[in-house]
């Protein structure tokens, strides 16, 4: 409490009910005090609070979340098998699910599957994390400083539209067939999309939050870190998801095009090898592996984070998630 002394009061607010003149009926007209003292007020408020707040709901494991996607997967595989068994196309052009599964087994036996998934995943994650570290301060700066945003905003949006594959030839000329080429292409894909996600997240912050920050005496830096960044988190997370998708795609594109040199053997390389050998089962296996990694990252990393974020802000009610 502040140090200033309380007002000199002739009559305390907290007065026992029996101190009132017996003759005067207490009229609850909202024009006068409606409670009879501190304890009465506390009791009334606590009653109203419990009436007005929802009882906490228990979260159970929802099996339909697990079973429905599995069922969808089974249906798709069955349709695939059915199509193959019709024999419309030659088996070596359209391999069936079992052929691809067999191929995956062979790749696993060779150690190629583990090597390619590990190489790609490692590059994707490292490239993505570096992109986040670069894009976050830049995005925050652009969102907070109007002249900077006007100057560089269109360029950043443009970079997001430019397919990052377009950078592969340039990167090969600059960096040769090294990991630097792969990372460069990943950065050019991920960084603009994370920056844009953060900026659009900041744009959607209710103006009231900034006013509160100002009134509470936040400095520019405090405003950015304590108010703007957390307020923009849902949009930022959307940007991160998209940034990851762009990293992964750019990485695959780079790996398919740039093969050899000191570049390790990734999933894109595996895909390219399948193409060179005209081995459709390898190609399909590589495509499915690329897809599977993408799905797993969404399910294990972004899904839970997003859900937690939305639930804690009360934004999950009524959504179909």
């Amino acid at each position, binding site marked *: 409490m502040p140090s200033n002394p*309380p007002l000199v009061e002739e009559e305390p607010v907290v007065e026992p009910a029996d101190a009132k003149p017996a003759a005067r009926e207490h009229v609850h007209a909202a024009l006068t005090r409606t409670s009879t003292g501190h304890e009465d007020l506390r009791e009334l408020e606590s009653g109203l609070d419990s009436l007005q707040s929802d009882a906490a709901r228990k979260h159970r494991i929802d099996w339909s979340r697990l079973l429905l996607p599995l069922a969808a997967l089974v249906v798709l595989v069955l349709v695939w098998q059915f199509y193959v068994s019709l024999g419309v196309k030659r088996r070596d052009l359209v391999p069936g699910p079992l052929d691809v599964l067999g191929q995956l087994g062979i790749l696993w036996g060779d150690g190629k599957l583990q090597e390619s998934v590990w190489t790609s995943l490692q590059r994707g994650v490292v490239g993505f994390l570096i992109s986040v570290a670069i894009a976050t301060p830049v995005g925050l700066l652009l969102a907070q400083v109007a002249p900077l945003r006007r100057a560089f905003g269109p360029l950043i949006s443009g970079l997001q539209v430019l397919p990052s594959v377009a950078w592969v030839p340039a990167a090969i000329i600059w960096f040769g067939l090294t990991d630097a080429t792969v990372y460069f292409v990943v950065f050019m894909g991920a960084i603009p999309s994370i920056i844009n996600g953060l900026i659009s997240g900041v744009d959607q912050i209710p103006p009231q939050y900034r006013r509160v920050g100002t009134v509470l005496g936040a400095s520019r830096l405090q405003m950015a870190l*304590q108010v703007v960044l957390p307020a923009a988190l849902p949009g930022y997370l959307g940007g991160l998801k998209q940034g990851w998708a762009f990293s992964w795609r750019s990485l695959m594109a780079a790996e398919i095009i740039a093969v050899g040199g000191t570049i390790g053997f990734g999933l894109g390389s595996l895909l390219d090898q399948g193409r060179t050998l005209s081995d459709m089962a390898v190609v399909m296996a590589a495509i499915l592996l690329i897809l599977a990694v993408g799905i797993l990252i969404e399910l294990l990393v972004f899904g839970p984070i997003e859900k937690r974020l939305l639930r804690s802000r009360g934004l999950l009610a009524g959504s179909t998630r």
Partner: protein
Amino acid sequence: MPVVLEHLGKRFGDGAPVLDDVNANIERGEFVALLGASGCGKSTLLNIIAGLEAPSSGALEVPSDGAAFMFQDAALFPWLTARENIELALKLRGVGKAERRAKAQELLELVHLGSAGDKRPHELSGGMRQRVSLARSLAQDRQLLLMDEPFAALDAITRDLLHDELERIWKETGRTIVFVTHNVREAVRLGQRVLLLSSRPGRVVQEWAVTEEHRTDAGLAGQLTGVITARLREEIRRHAK
């Protein structure tokens, strides 16, 4: 005297003045209700007192450390719990970590929310949110507290209770409160003085004192409410075409 307004005027661009020749003296520890119809520039006046906007003319004297502000919507940060919202206000003021925790709990107790500190704003009712917001504005520890229609969006039962609550906290903390409202009954219920602002341009046209008698005697309070309402309507009627 924490707040002195002298011939205060405000216009935005080349438009008609929003405020014109506003004069008021607000004593330390006083509870002043600022009453007016829509378009009287009540919020602009509060913003000027808070230092969020500059007046176009006139002079004003406000406490050098500024003012605490409470908005119509609670404006709590949804990513923080009730306690963390209060702690943030303390943190931005430069209060140390250990002290923040204790102080926040103390403020939560003051608004009777001692056990709801770990709830998120969306888990609280409108009245509870406003109380957290009140605790947050008290955490700013400024002598002057500006309130911009803080109870306007609440249901009547909750509002009546919060009137009692605010009066109790005002007396406990000795704050100077400037309370903006368009509700005559609310102004009479809370203010020691009611200042009526005219509309377009805003100007203090009349003021009434509300005594301790009015706090307990509904008849007396009702009478004063009637008088002020009549004067307010007169002011509104001037704008009829």
